[in-house]
């Protein structure tokens, strides 16, 4: 069901509206105080209304979305900095669908329809893949009942996180997403895709969805900053009337537009199967740097108020930086882009 431009704009509006109602910033504040964990109520709503099933093929009663559509959801999820593992579940399901696992393993599909989440380790890149392993580092939002995709040089293993797995929490900069290291034995492996390309596909899909999420994070920080700069007065002028601030905001906006184009281009590349590596490396280089820079500048423009714990801005800064470092840093992707274009390592 690839959408045309107009449909996609409508879809975006629906997404934004959903998160604005179900995952408002105040909810975020509450999670800050109570500690970071999974937003169960929100996840239930997302499952109920079909958001979690957007990447499930249409013939399996899912949304059948291409990545060009799915990145819209990821971006809006980032904008809301919502606390449910929607982005990983969509990306993971997308890859499972591509390799027919949802059809060959109906019990997996059934669980996902019933609300099981999908996740994967976020510290890997294609050069760090090794032999098939029984552990995963820096897994986002792993919880009993989650499906965990474990990439290796041999392909992908699908693991059910349950009482048989050993999950140890890892404290990170990102206060509104939980991370853990997971250990397991073969008894919990529910499916295996013996194809290295599946691991690469998980990586490219996850990178694009992450870049889209970061774009949303940066857009939210930008919107806050633009509004603040029109409101806040210093020296009897709104600070947005100072040319230094105007040009800063212009630069932030330019970076957002660049990231937008890069994310859309990468999603289309995956959908079309053309120049996939070149496009996702571009998306992470431009988008990863943009999100960190924009959120950091947002803090500078906010001044003291943006330096307080109570202001939500730092949650966006933290997410942008964490995403920048996970799934290959921009520097890693930049070298990989040159290698992909050259067809060989270049130094």
């Amino acid at each position, binding site marked *: 069901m690839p959408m045309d431009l107009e449909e996609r704009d409508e879809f975006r509006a629906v997404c934004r509206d959903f998160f604005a109602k179900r995952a408002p910033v105040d909810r975020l504040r509450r999670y800050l105080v109570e500690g970071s964990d999974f937003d169960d109520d929100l996840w239930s709503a997302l499952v109920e209304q079909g958001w979690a099933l957007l990447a499930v093929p249409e013939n399996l009663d899912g949304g059948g979305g291409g990545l060009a559509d799915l990145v819209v959801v990821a971006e809006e999820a980032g904008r809301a900095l919502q606390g449910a593992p929607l982005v990983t579940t969509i990306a993971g399901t997308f890859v499972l669908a591509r390799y027919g696992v949802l059809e060959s393993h109906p019990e997996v599909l059934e669980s996902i329809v019933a609300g099981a989440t999908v996740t994967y380790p976020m510290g890997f890149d294609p050069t760090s893949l090794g032999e098939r392993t029984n552990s995963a580092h820096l897994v986002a939002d792993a919880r009993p009942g989650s499906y965990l995709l474990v990439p290796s040089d041999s392909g992908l293993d699908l693991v059910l996180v349950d009482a048989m797995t050993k999950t140890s929490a890892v404290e990170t900069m990102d206060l509104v997403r939980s991370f853990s290291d997971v250990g397991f034995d073969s008894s919990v492996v529910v499916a295996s895709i013996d194809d290295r390309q599946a691991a690469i596909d998980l990586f490219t899909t996850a990178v694009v969805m992450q870049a889209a999420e970061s774009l949303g994070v940066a857009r939210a920080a930008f919107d806050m900053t633009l509004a603040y700069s029109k409101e806040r007065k210093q020296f009897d002028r709104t600070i947005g009337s100072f040319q230094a601030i*105007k040009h800063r*905001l*212009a630069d932030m906006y330019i970076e957002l537009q660049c990231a937008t184009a890069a994310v859309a*281009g990468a999603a289309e590349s995956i959908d079309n199967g053309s120049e996939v590596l070149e496009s996702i490396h571009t998306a992470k280089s*431009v988008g990863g740097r943009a999100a960190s820079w924009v959120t950091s500048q947002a803090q500078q423009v906010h001044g003291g108020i943006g330096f307080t714990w109570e202001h939500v801005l730092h949650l966006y800064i933290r997410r942008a930086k964490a995403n920048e470092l996970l799934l290959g840093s921009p520097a890693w992707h930049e070298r990989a882009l040159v290698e992909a*274009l050259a067809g060989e390592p270049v130094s």
Partner: protein
Amino acid sequence: MQLQLDDSLVSFRDGLRSYIGHNRPSIPRLPGSRSPQPEDMAEFKAWCAGLFDNGFVGFDWPEEWGGTGVPDPLKDYVVDLELADAGVPRPVGAFNLIARALLEFGADEQKAFYLPRIRSFTDMWCQLFSEPDAGSDLAALRTRAELVGDEWVITGQKVWTTHGHLSDFGFLLARTDQTVSKHAGISAFIIDMHSPGIDVRPLREVTGATDFNEVFFDSVRIPRDNIIGSPGQGWEITRSALAHERALSLREDSVVDSAARLLELVQRSRADGTVPLSGDDVSRRLGELTARARVTDLLGMEGVLRAATGTSGPVDAAIVKVVFSETNLALATFGVELQGADGIIAGPASRVDDGHWQEAYLWARGFTISAGSNEIMRNLIAENGLGLPREPRPERSK
């Protein structure tokens, strides 16, 4: 990174390809601001006229004047792309701008006389806007036009006039009223560039080449009817014509091509050791610049798509301009730097690309300054795009 074309565009493109195949001129394609050689002008004009005749350029004009009346930014984009890929000249000069001005504001007699000449590319046109004291602030222009009897008498100086030395006609902005605020006193004219009293002098740039001209007007007389629209309407006419001007720059100095050329250079140097690379961070920096270049192209394509669907944002063009010009500067700078000490060697003696990168480095600042400096672009983005308060404007200060 290619636009997906539908069937009708594919057929349009194939028609153009075939046309180029059968009619390829012998003269070279030149970068955006370079002028054809005088001896090539006849063939250049004939080639451009053929593109009009065969519906590849000017198809958007009203049917009455030889077009289809249907603008199509995707077709424009395909034409730019194909001409560039085939390495054949594209039509240059201010013909597009003046046609827009005449179609919207011209008198019937003006349309009847000039529009057919534009389609047959009988004349080369130049744009006479910038002045030494009116760069970013075009409305500060001082060239005067005074009505004396049945003629306008033009006195003043223009600068950065592309193709001025080859032009038959100019699209001139001059001040007809000194008493009103800056924008209000400006009028638009057509001026015969062969008129007595016009002195066109080549202008040498930092690279040492001459691509532009200074144009001096010493009491140049032009007929009263050469004004476009009414006196004082010049600013409105210009803005409208510029808004219709297609962003042609995209394929002219492709930053993706530059990035690819740099990669080739780096690979070659690995093979034959000719380039003393500046070190092991070359790959990462090249990757960052390549990503930036690819995004520049993506933004440009998105601009074309938005124009095609009528959803262009007010500052899309400004954003592309800033990103393109700054990426281009960064690429050229890196192209020099990665040659190490030998990066200072210029001209044909240069061990790499005949000194291309040294010249590109010096030239690249031109793009961040001209066509609205990047500072002006950032103001536009902040004010028109983001709704931030305006800088004090001349209207207010007078």
